[in-house]
């Protein structure tokens, strides 16, 4: 019975994290962008520092009518937000937060699990793009698919490099095997992973699939109200997952001073710092054009990923 209770408690904890952390990232994005761009709007609602802006947004989304276009494929259109959001919930289960089994569920092939399930989320955007019966949505869906094709490979290569270094593809096992000198050793892989992850999430500067000046809002153009909010939530959940994964794979997860009792705090701090970088990149860099985007993946990231794997292999053979 205690075994069942344990599992239930873990799953509830993961669910709470899934419901809270993306909203925290969303609120942070409001504030950080407002500071960086000197914008007053998000700083107004509720008085102190505009704390109620996120609540106001939520209320607004909940009030709006849920419209399905007449020409749309109704079922696929309505299913798409769930398909794009749920995979991130599943991924969170496998991410280790602290030592001694502080993880939703330790999965033997954890690395493969998270990468595989993250890839499924993109199906939601593609479904939305097709089912909307809108040419801009279709273009957005096409761009999403092309982007996933291009960036899945460098991401896998970088992740494979860490798995080689650790000698395991279990996520807690990888963090367990971590040493501080892995950071310079796996630096290229880490950068490739983070960049490719950003592209997979369609975050700026890789937000060509939702480029507002060309195709309105890509695959999500026809969505309104809560379903639209679900897509936004999926993006923020994706940021949480990507940053947590980068932390676990390349920054040593719970390792740090006092990691015995405060390991979970280290994971959260590193994840939060990376999330800040994601927001920072959004307000800093202009959007890449579609051809530049493809070129970056195929001619820069993939060769770098392969080079990192070669480097990992050489060092691994030398030190063993």
């Amino acid at each position, binding site marked *: 019975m205690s075994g069942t209770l344990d599992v239930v408690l873990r799953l509830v904890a993961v669910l709470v994290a899934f419901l809270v952390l993306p909203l925290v990232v969303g609120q942070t994005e409001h504030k950080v962008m407002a500071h960086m761009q000197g914008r007053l*709007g998000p700083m107004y609602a509720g008085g102190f520092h505009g704390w109620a802006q996120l609540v106001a947004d939520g209320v607004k989304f909940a009030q709006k009518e849920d419209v399905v276009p007449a020409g749309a494929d109704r079922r696929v259109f309505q299913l798409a937000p769930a398909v794009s959001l749920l995979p991130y919930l599943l991924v969170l289960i496998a991410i280790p937060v602290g030592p001694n089994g502080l993880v939703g569920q330790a999965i033997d*092939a954890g690395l493969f699990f998270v990468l595989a399930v993250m890839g*499924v989320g993109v199906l939601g955007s593609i479904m939305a793009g*097709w*089912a909307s019966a809108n040419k801009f949505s279709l273009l957005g869906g096409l761009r999403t698919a092309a982007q996933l*094709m291009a960036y*899945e490979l460098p991401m896998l290569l970088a992740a494979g490099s860490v798995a080689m270094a650790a000698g*395991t593809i279990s996520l807690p096992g990888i963090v367990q095997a971590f040493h501080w000198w892995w950071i310079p050793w796996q630096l290229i892989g880490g950068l490739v992973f983070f960049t490719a992850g950003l592209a997979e999430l369609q975050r700026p500067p890789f937000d060509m699939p939702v480029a507002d000046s060309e195709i309105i809002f890509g695959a999500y153009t026809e969505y309104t109200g809560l379903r639209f909010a679900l897509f936004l939530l999926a993006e923020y959940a994706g940021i949480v997952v990507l940053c947590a994964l980068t932390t676990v794979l390349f920054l040593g997860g719970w390792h740090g001073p006092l990691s015995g009792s405060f390991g979970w705090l280290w994971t959260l701090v590193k994840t939060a710092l990376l999330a800040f970088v994601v927001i920072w990149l959004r307000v800093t860099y202009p959007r890449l054009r579609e051809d*530049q985007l493809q070129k970056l993946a195929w001619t820069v990231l993939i060769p770098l990923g392969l080079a990192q794997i070669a480097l990992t292999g050489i060092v691994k053979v030398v030190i063993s």
Partner: protein
Amino acid sequence: MTLAAAHPGFMSPSGVEIAFALVGIATLGAALITVTTRQLVHAALWLVVALGGLAIEYLLLTAEFIAWVQVLIYVGSVVVLLLFGLMLTKAPIGRSPDADSGNGWVALTVAVAAAATLVWVVVDAFRSTWIDLGGAAQGSTKVTGAVLFRHWVLPFEALSVLLLAALVGAIVLSRRGAPARRAASAALGALSGRGASSGPGAMSERAAGSERAAVSKRKTGES
């Protein structure tokens, strides 16, 4: 089979076996809809269900690694490629009556023959062998890796060569417009990294005056 255990009989199925049968039925159903539906994109989406069901079957057989590879490659990549191809043809919403090649009966015959062959091979190979799934996992990453790179390394490498050949073939075919000799050399050049478009200079071509993503109000959520 080293882990063959005593046959506990079919009359008292365990929970895993019931789940296996149910998921199998669902997978078969999804596969049938995939090939019979008249809506092109729906067929691709039902294929996702069928492939996902197959992954769950692997999982129930404790072949965890294979299951996630199945999701990663087939659901995450192959189906996305399929949908990409369909969307390039502006796959219409609703039925496409002209999407029937008229080969239904031939396809059915081939499918039934293939299924019969596969089922016969599996049944003949294992007969009443009973593999205990409760013991050490035989499909864990470690076991799969060891088996793949110790016992099956030659077929594995042969397959890589086959895939490489397919890759070269695809490049050659897609550049048919150019004279054949030039195409072949270009394909080889692209593979060895000497292609015209390679090199890390791609990033420097950032368009001058491209608008700042920073100031774009991309989301309606921000005022």
